[in-house]
């Protein structure tokens, strides 16, 4: 890469900004205080939730049909997952196979007659992921890339099941931003942080909504009580 040209362009841009706004203070404390003051307004500038309790608000949002292509259920413990997954597969007449994320808490469950390691690139795959967080405001689940979490697991399958521990469901996106900031302070920011709120959809042809444009067509969230 041409470093000289890169530096010249950088300098040109910074000089042009300084020339356009020469009187602005660059006191870091002032800048940070102004930035924090803006965030203090968030409490009054965000939508009301459908319940005070975050998990209940998330469930209400999904059950009200406000999260495209998504259903949800609450199970008492992880051991109930295979049964829920079987019901999901039966509902959509799918074969007894799914790609389960490679995390011990999911892999160690008794999947009985289900095959749990299928080729992700098959178009009609069912994927199952362990979400880090849920967000009630938007009906989202959040996944972080890691050695155990291929991001493509959430985008290649036509059907996606996300498992969220109930205690990890947050009220607002702002709450997740705070957590992301704490993760960054620990120097543990993952490559990708994805907030997924519904399924892959498009309205590009005549404004008609079609689900499953590139990624999942159907999504199911299972909230686990005891985690």
């Amino acid at each position, binding site marked *: 890469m041409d470093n000289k040209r890169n530096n010249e362009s950088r300098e040109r*841009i910074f000089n042009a900004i300084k020339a356009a706004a020469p009187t602005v203070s660059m006191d870091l404390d002032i800048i940070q205080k102004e930035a924090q003051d803006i965030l203090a307004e968030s409490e009054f500038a965000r939508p009301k939730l459908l319940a005070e309790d975050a998990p209940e608000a998330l469930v209400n949002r999904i059950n009200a049909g406000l999260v495209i292509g998504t259903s949800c259920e609450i199970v008492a413990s992880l051991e109930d997952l295979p049964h829920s997954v079987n019901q999901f597969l039966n509902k959509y007449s799918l074969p007894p196979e799914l790609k389960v994320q490679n995390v011990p808490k999911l892999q160690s469950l008794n999947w009985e007659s289900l095959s749990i390691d299928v080729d992700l*690139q098959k178009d009609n795959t069912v994927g199952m992921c362990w979400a880090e967080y849920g967000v009630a405001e938007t009906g989202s689940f959040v996944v972080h890339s890691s050695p155990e979490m291929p991001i493509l697991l959430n*985008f290649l399958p036509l059907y996606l099941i996300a498992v969220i521990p109930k205690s990890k469901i947050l009220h607002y996106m*702002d709450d997740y931003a705070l957590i992301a*900031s704490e993760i960054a302070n620990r120097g543990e920011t993952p490559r990708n942080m994805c907030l997924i*709120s519904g399924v892959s959809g498009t309205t590009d042809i005549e*404004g008609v909504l079609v689900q499953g444009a590139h990624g999942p067509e159907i999504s199911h969230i299972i909230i686990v009580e005891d985690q």
Partner: protein
Amino acid sequence: MHANKPENFYQNVTEALAQPDLKMIIRRTTDKAETKRAEAIANFPEFEKARQQGQKVKDHTIKYMDHYLAEFEKNAAAQGTIVHWASTGEEASKIVLDICRQHEAKKVTRSKSMLGEEIGLSHALDNSGIERVETDLAEHIIQLAGDPPSHIVWPAMHRSREDVIKLFREFHKDPTYSEEITDLVRSARRDLRTKFLTSDIGISGSNFLLADSGSSCTVTNEGNAELTITPPKVHIVTAGIEKLVPSMAHAVPLLRLLTRSATGGEITQYITFHNGPKRPNDADGPEECHIVLVDNGRTKMLADGMEEMLRCIRCGACMNHCVVYKHIGGHAYGSVYPGPMGSVLTPHLDSLKVANKQTHACTLNGRCEEVCPVNIPLPKLLRALRAESWQKKYEPLTNRYVVKAYAQLAKRPRMFQFVSSCGVVFMKLFSRQGWIKSMPFTGGWTRNRDLIEPESKTFMQQYKASKKAKSSGGR
């Protein structure tokens, strides 16, 4: 379809108005967007406060842009991202091409980015012989059709289902013969799936750049950005410098505003924060990540007192609510950015000399400002550009003489009233059943619609008569 140019605006408009179905096709999408946005705002009583907060986030970042740019650069580099700077669009395209060549890329996938269009990246890639695969469904459609985008959110809104059927049957390897929209989307899914997985480089734009972490954020409903970025070995982001916000927490209010204003949804299905290349042992992701930060006229906007335009989050609400856009569509503007926001942006990205006519294609009804999620005073900015265009003598001589003559006349009330009376009589000569189909000097109007017959008397004559009637009635 040929690519229109901004300097040919009037000719482009004439051609657009002559297309019988265009207005109906545009309104099918924009009217729906307008209705859905209204519903979304009605369900969000705090919208006005959110709008003020969103405006503050953008104004604060613009005020300290050099500080936040330096922060972003430092933090992105710490994540392992290679940061590039480009003063112009041409420079930005060259940087992207150089990276592609360095990696001997044969195929690149792209997720929708208006900045990519702005810097001419599509053409640059095509001319370099690298296979370019547009992965957003609308961009895929217009790539097959060879069209430029006509809207910043729905770039293929000018294409009907029949057009899409023909295109997919011609270009897809395993096309559908169904005419159902669901089957058409499946056909695109099949066609693009292998391309996602075999691409050498993924190129994306960025909705937000987070200064405190050096992250870029993509927002899509299709999920094509993640599929574009994750499988290839290299990820390149091209982003305008105005995309900066201080942190993720500052991006959140803008995310709330963006989707509601763009499509009327409450939130976009996929919001992903990208933090450099894959970490050691990550299951997937690119091994190398580049960000090209582009100026291309943005600092000129700062210098020209147009910094309010840098608040724009590219939601497209202004064009969905614009009476002019709804009649002529996006291509007539001859620019990547159509509608009200485009009429302000294009003179800075290109030049006012070639794009001054667009600034006059506005009724100044103020709808764009009313619906803008970050309170950009678009009518005010358009008026400022009109004034500048006048001062720089970009207006045609005839317009200048007519305006000067009008100014002289307006200073002389008696003369003004006399000429107005003559005008009324003159117009009456051409009137039939209340309408004027054609008349000298009004071809620009009557070419596409009739002119209503004027009242028999001028405004001042009617005003005096009304005043007289009132005073005699009072006696």
